Structure formats: C-alpha cells, structure tokens
C-alpha cells in the first residue's frame, strides 16, 4: 500500500503517525464498563450481550465508517465465527482463547476471499453482493444440518474454563469479563489502525476515491485489507456469543442481525469507533425496554426507530451525542 507515512519517516508526516492521547472520558467509559461488572452482577448476561454487539458494531464501523462500504450481510462473518468457535469447542478443544483465535482466523479467511467481491461496482452492487454472501452461508448452514444442527442450532457445546482457571457460570459473570476484555483489546487495536497512516489513507478513499488514487493510495489493496480486518472482528464477536452462550444457530446468519448492527452503528454515529460502543448500549437497552412492552412486535418498533432516525437526520443526532460531552473532551480526533 503506498501510504506515504509508512515508507518515509519524513518530519512533516510525523504528525500523521502520532496516536492521539487517550482522553479522560475514554478512561471513564471503560471504567464504567468494568464498574458495571461489580455494581450490576445480576445483569451480566445483558452486559455480555452489549459487549459483543459493541464489538460487532466496531467491526462494521471499520468498513462502513472508514471504508465507505455499505454492507447488508455483515452477519455472514458473525455467524461463521460463531459456528467455527462452537464446532471447534465441541469436536477439538474446549479452550475458549484458542477457539477465539481459530474463529477469528476462519472469519478473516472468508473475509479475505470475499473482499474481492466488494471492491467492484456501485453501492447497490455491494449491497447485493454482501447480502448474497450472507444468504449463501445461511443456505449452506441450513443444508449441512448434520454439521451445524440446521434450524435447531448446534447444541451440546461445552466450553472449558477461561485460561484453565475460570469456568463460565450461568449468570454470565465470567462471560462478561471475558467479552469485555476481548472488546477492550480489539477496540484499541482498531483505534491504532484508524489513526495510523493506513487509517488516514482509508478516510481519503472514503471521502474522495479518485483523488486518493491520484495521490498514490492504492484503493483496492486498502479496502481489501480493512474488509478482512473487519470480518475478523465480526468473527470474534460471533465467537464470543457462541462461547459465552454455548450455542450457535442459523440466527447468526440472519438478515436481522446485519440490519440491526447497521442501526446500532448509526445510533452511535458512523465513522467514530465509540459510535459502535455507545450504539450497542443504547440499542440493547432500547430493545430490552421495547421487548418487555410488546414481546412479539418489538421489531416493528425498532423499524420505527430506523425511520425516525433517518428522517430526523442521523448526523444531527450523532452530533447531539457529542455535544453532551464537555468541549475540551469532544474533538473530532477522539477515536
């Protein structure tokens, strides 16, 4: 990739390679996430769900917010991660960390292969292709039900204890800490990536592909790489879900999952890594409230949220979120 900053450590380009400081509110956010483990022990399962959804949304943000690729089939990689992790634990080795790595590798491999497909064409073509990939995987998982368990899901996955020490409990206490740690690590890796010269190259492509090419940023290679990274993240999220619930099903490939994560990201703000985290918190709480109001029809209410969000203008709402922060914490460069 011809990103200038990498090859020539020129003094004038040094600013691009500098990582932004971790701000106070970022520390506060992650501390709050940890404090939730102590303060809300009964809500661990829900918190775990939030952490996983946040990771999934961050994964989508990498390609949507930084690569400018609208994907309607990101669940393809989530589902793959979930199945791989579950199958690996069931048949080979129940250790969660090894399983996580294997699942990430599998999703990334799939992402690397399919990244060729999203490089071409217009938004519509990409929509269709990503949607198509997810549907194909759904059909395959449904077809090979002797391996995946088909519509019933893959049962009987028993996870080993984390690090050989902490067994997963029913209340999800260990699960939440596990998911949160994975999210934290991967989040800061992603933060490094988007503030690296590579990340700036991506933003250049997103904002003006032709001009980016003109200054020597290889479009296809950059997008393929970020797509692969993003799918690896999605795979990690899927693996976390499968490992912490001991269950993988066709639901991982479902269209609702791809659509919901779009909404999650849009709620929190696209092109801003914390958007995925904030969106996941808001979305999960919202869904929790809505599904207690109408257990059967909450999808419709979520749909209403989609429509209102777009009509009001998602930029305006995302800016509203940021406006809540004190001025000196705000700053466009804050991850």
């Amino acid at each position: 990739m011809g990103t200038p900053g990498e090859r020539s450590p020129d003094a004038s380009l040094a600013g691009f390679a500098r990582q932004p400081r971790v701000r106070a509110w970022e520390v506060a956010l992650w501390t709050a996430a940890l404090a939730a483990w102590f303060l809300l022990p009964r809500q661990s399962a829900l918190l775990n769900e939030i952490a996983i959804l946040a990771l999934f949304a961050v994964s989508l943000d990498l390609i949507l917010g930084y690569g400018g690729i609208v994907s309607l089939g990101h669940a393809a990689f989530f589902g793959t991660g979930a199945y791989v992790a579950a199958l690996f634990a069931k048949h080979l080795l129940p250790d969660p960390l090894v399983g996580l790595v294997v699942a990430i590798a599998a999703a990334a491999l799939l992402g690397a292969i399919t990244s060729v497909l999203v490089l071409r064409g217009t938004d519509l073509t990409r929509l269709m292709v990503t949607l198509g990939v997810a549907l194909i995987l759904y059909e395959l998982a449904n077809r090979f039900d002797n391996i995946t368990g088909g519509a019933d899901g893959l049962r009987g996955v028993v996870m080993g204890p984390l690090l050989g020490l902490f067994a997963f409990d029913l209340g999800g206490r260990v699960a939440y800490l596990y998911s949160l740690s994975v999210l934290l690590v991967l989040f800061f890796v992603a933060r490094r990536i988007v503030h690296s010269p590579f990340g700036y190259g991506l933003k250049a492509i997103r904002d003006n592909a032709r001009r980016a090419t003109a200054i020597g940023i290889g479009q296809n290679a950059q997008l393929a790489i970020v797509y692969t990274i993003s799918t690896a993240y999605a795979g990690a999220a899927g693996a976390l879900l499968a490992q912490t619930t001991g269950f993988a099903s066709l639901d991982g490939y479902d269209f609702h999952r791809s659509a919901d994560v779009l909404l999650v990201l849009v709620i929190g703000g696209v092109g801003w890594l914390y958007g995925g985290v904030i969106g996941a918190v808001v979305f999960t709480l919202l869904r929790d409230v809505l599904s207690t109001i109408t257990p059967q029809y909450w999808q419709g209410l979520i749909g209403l949220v989609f429509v209102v969000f777009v009509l009001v203008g998602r930029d305006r709402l995302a800016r509203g979120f940021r406006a809540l922060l004190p001025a000196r914490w705000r700053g466009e460069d804050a991850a």
Partner: protein
Amino acid sequence: MLTILFDGIAYGMLLFVLAVGLAVTLGLMNFVNLAHGAFAMAGGYLTAVLSNKLGVPFLASLPLAFVFVAALGAVLEPTLYRPLYRRPHLDQVLFSIGLVFIAVAGVDYAFGAQQQFVRLPAFLRGRFEIAGVGVGAYRLFIIAICGVLTLVLQAVLTRTRFGSRLRAAVDDSRVASGLGIDVNKVFLGTFAVGSGLAGLGGALGAEILGLDPTFPLKFMIYFLVVVAVGGTTTITGPLLASLLLGIADVAGKYYVPKLGAFIIYCVMIVVLMIRPQGLFARPAGR
C-alpha cells in the same frame, strides 16, 4: 420438463410485475428501496381480505389491489420518500429496512403470523394438458395477465408522451428538468404505478409465492436480483432477468431441492462480478 419451463415462466412473469416498479425507482431516482416488497404484501393481504372475508370476486379484487396500493404509493412518495432522494445510500437502506420491519410487525399484529390463502375461482383451479404438457390454469392466467401488462408498459414507455418524459428523466434528470419536464411529478406517477404493479403482483402471487408477514424480507433479494441483473435502463432487461430467475429457481427447486435458493445467489454474485451494471444494461446517459 416443459411443465417446469412453463411454471418457471409464470413465476418469472410474476416476479417481473412485482419488481418492475423497483427498477424504475432505482433507475430514476437512484433510490435503494428495500421496502418494495411491503407494497406487494399490501396488495396480497388486500386481496385476501376482499375475497375471503368480504366476498368480492377474485377478478374484481385484482384491480382494487392495484388501485389501493398505487394510492398508498402516491401518498408515501412525496411525504416519506422524496426527502431522501439526495441522501446517501446508507440512509435510504436504513429507512427502507425500517419500513419493512414496521410492515412485517404491523401485518403480524393485524392478521397473525400464519400464512394467508386466497380462494381462487373454480375456473382458475384446474390443470389440463396442451400437447402433452401439464399446464396449471392459474399459471396460464398469470402469464396472460403479466404478458398483457408488459406489452402495455412497453407501449406506454415508447409510444406516449409520459413515456418519453420518463425515459428522459431516467437518462438525465437534470437536463430533463431543464427542458421543462416536471421530474417530481413524473416520478410521483411512476412510483404510484410501480407500487400498484407490486400490489397487483402480490395479489396474483399470494397463491404461488405464499403470503405471510415475512413476505417483504423473503422476496427482497429476488426483487433486487431482478433489478441488479436486468439493469434499470430498459424494461426488457428486468423482464429477461425475471424470466431467467423464475425458470432457474423453479428448475433448481425441482431438481436439487436441498440446495434451495443457493444457486440463485451464486449466479447473482457471478453476474454482478462480470457485469456490475447488469446483464442487459445499456450504457446510461450519465
């Protein structure tokens, strides 16, 4: 063998009527409307209610479905859709997915999750043989109606003043409006007719495609395939694409039922890789 071909053609014709409105929406306004299937579903449920509960004859309920859904489209276009034409595709996708979710939950609430059946009149129910080929009367009926509709659409598009305005607007809406064509009005009309056709298609297809609240989600990909493969610049493109899709789907489900729609998706991806603008698209004026 020929029966499969025949069923495939009927299925394809149906898909064409369902999806042609979407082709226009995409081609004219570059609007990704994933909620197109919701209009079709509205037509289907309207017919089910009219013919099963209110005793309206099936044949009379078809035009009613068209008119009602067209009116629905005419109301929604200027109020909800128009503000979004200039927005990024992400907004349009989110918005129309939202509409789909609302429609699915709303119909579920009103009619329940079970499948709806439309009672067909006796003369459409039979099955007979022409030269050794088994032909379902209802499928023949569908082919006839959709064939006539296609001819009418083609004639309107090529022979009338409205048609030439529409084509001009599709080719280049800015120049068209510069020439004094009220693009908004043209689009309103087209959107309404397109929605109406989807409603009619939904009404006709309730018997073949199955009608339940998840209809818009289940067939979203089919409509998109028709449009993406057929291109948005002509009527013959989507027509050929839907015929191909219909025949391939019916044949695939007959010969390799286990694979389901798998083949369709693979073919779609391959086609889009080779011809991102669609198989039958001619270069647009832009």
